[in-house]
């Protein structure tokens, strides 16, 4: 390897020192980069572990100030509802748009669509919040007039997910070899048959990865919820209208961490730990999915 061919002898001491210094500089930087990230997980565990228990996950917040007793069931249920709603919107639309980009990738329209879809990936989350507010929540002007509600927030998060799912779907479809598609077409399969029977089954792992990726990205979103849902300490009976807001894990952390109460800080850190663990598990799921399909592919190939 490269290390062995180094001309160790005959170097001036300046170069030797510089070599060592710059090398250790990178190591220091590496430690500086990884430590804070690990510290976040550790601190969340260290400060939050006192509140962790099974009932923390299964009970609703109570007490005064609210949250001092009980757990985060409202946040977990709410987050699940939001993710479900977001997926209900973004998965069909995203796959649909991804199919379009893949099928007609050469057309000018598709190129523009692809560019705009990519641009949507870069829209800051507050802007999504403002858009969600006007499209779904507010009762004046155009829009759905749903008030602060789970549906409004869920679909706003769905908006955020759409470009992610679109992009990853297109990518997964592109990885399906063209020859199969052309072969099928040449044999007289209709486009619909090709898409349904060939392209989608072949790309399904990739699409799944995309959906998980989208979920991962919207799971911790707090800013759009401030504009479209806010928070609920209970579990709502409806998802629409002025009484339809749901709880949310990220929002719950946001609210608890504000509080002057140390006890609520503990709860906040415990909730942060739960959220982090969920995110990391999802992430691992994505990796396993990608890795598994690769292994599988290698074995079959």
């Amino acid at each position, binding site marked *: 390897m490269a290390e062995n061919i180094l001309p160790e002898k005959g170097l001036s001491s300046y170069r030797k020192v510089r070599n060592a210094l710059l090398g250790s500089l990178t190591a220091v930087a590496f430690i500086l980069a990884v430590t804070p990230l690990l510290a976040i997980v550790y601190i969340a565990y260290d400060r939050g572990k006192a509140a962790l228990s099974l009932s923390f996950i299964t009970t609703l917040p109570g007490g005064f100030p609210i949250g001092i007793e009980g757990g985060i069931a409202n946040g977990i249920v709410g987050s699940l509802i939001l993710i479900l709603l977001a997926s209900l919107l973004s998965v069909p639309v995203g796959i649909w748009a991804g199919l379009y980009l893949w099928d007609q990738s050469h057309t000018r329209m598709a190129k523009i669509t692809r560019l705009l879809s990519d641009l949507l990936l870069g829209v800051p989350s507050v802007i999504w919040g403002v858009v969600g507010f006007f499209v779904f929540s*507010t*009762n004046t002007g155009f829009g759905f007039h749903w008030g*602060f509600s789970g549906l409004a927030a869920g679909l706003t998060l769905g908006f955020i997910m759409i470009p992610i799912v679109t992009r990853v779907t297109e990518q997964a479809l592109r990885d399906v070899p063209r020859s199969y598609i052309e072969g099928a077409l040449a044999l007289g399969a209709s486009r619909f048959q090709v898409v349904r029977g060939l392209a989608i089954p072949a790309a399904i792992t990739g699409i799944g990865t995309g959906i998980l990726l989208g979920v991962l990205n919207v799971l911790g979103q707090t800013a759009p919820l401030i504009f479209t849902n*806010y928070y609920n*300490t209970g579990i709502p009976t409806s998802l629409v*209208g002025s009484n*339809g*807001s749901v709880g949310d894990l990220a929002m719950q952390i946001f609210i608890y961490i504000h*509080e002057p*109460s140390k006890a609520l800080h503990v709860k906040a850190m415990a909730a942060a730990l739960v959220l982090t663990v969920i995110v990391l598990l999802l992430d691992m799921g994505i990796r396993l999915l990608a890795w598994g399909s690769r292994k599988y592919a290698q074995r079959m190939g």
Partner: protein
Amino acid sequence: MNIVKRTAGLALSLAIVSVLSGAGTARATDLTISGSTMLFPLEQVWANAYMKSHPGVHISVASTGSGFGISNAANGNITIGASDAYLTKDLRTRYGSLAAIPVAFDDTQVIYNIPGVKKSQLLRMDGPTLARIFMGKIKFWDDKSIREINPDVHFPHQRIKVIHRADASGTTFVFTDYLSQTSKEWYDEIGRDLSPSWPVGSGYNGSDAVVAAVMATPGAIGYVGLGWINEYHLSSMALKNLDGYYVVGSVKTIQNAGKAALHDPSFPDDFNRSIVWNLHGKDVYPDANFEFWMVSTALPARTMLEVKKMVIWALTKGQQEKYTVKTGFAPLPFAPLKPRLNKILNRLLPGNSMKIESGG
């Protein structure tokens, strides 16, 4: 062909959406109260008690800031908007359909964190000095004007760190109202607002965050409602009232303030005035306020009936000390309020107001 398909797709999604929203709005006994962070603790207690005594009614409460409460009650996003601020002339002209119902007394108090000054030590403050602190013109705690009001307190040479609210807040409104009434400088340069342009300091989202920041920052000064003072055993400053007395805010002194206001014949029937200025008397806190529920008179009749039931409950049974005083509010003095309240309630649902028989 494409256009047909597109429209079909759109129509389908619209249909799904409308079915969803139809399912959601079917429940008529759901009420949402959202707004003031100050009133939030009381509302939580009320909601729990009300839901217990009125099965079938579901109330969800959220603390989103008074500004939110006003604007969204007016727009119909929520059923009841909670606010610490009354409806200014501006707002009344913009949202003609909004009725403000006073539901409790609260106040805004000045909290501080001065190293070396004991909690038990009473600090005094007057409006002009306070205004100058919040304008950044007085920079140190041992400033001459502060020492003059507090001759018996030894102040450290510590920088003053102003802490205020970052969101639109009724607490801020009440506090800046006091400053505007007492300091011409403040009135001219900044004025009274839920979200004024603060010249100095740092802002935090919610009263809870203000308390946390004041507790954590040596040299800090901030302002919160009475509920927070009780909850976290904070020490607050005695403010100078119109007659020159320095009064510490408490359930009793803010109730005195309310009574003084209500007995003042010039106090408007629709409560569209803060009660900080017309305060005569020894034990009258100068920075007290009504907490309001904002209800749009344009609500559908069925919802309105439920709202009115809830409002009447809050104004009567809801005023019991186990709800109000426990969470840091003063109960409304009912008798002098009754004629005015009836007038407002009459606006909500004409001809049905006399149901209120007795106060709590």
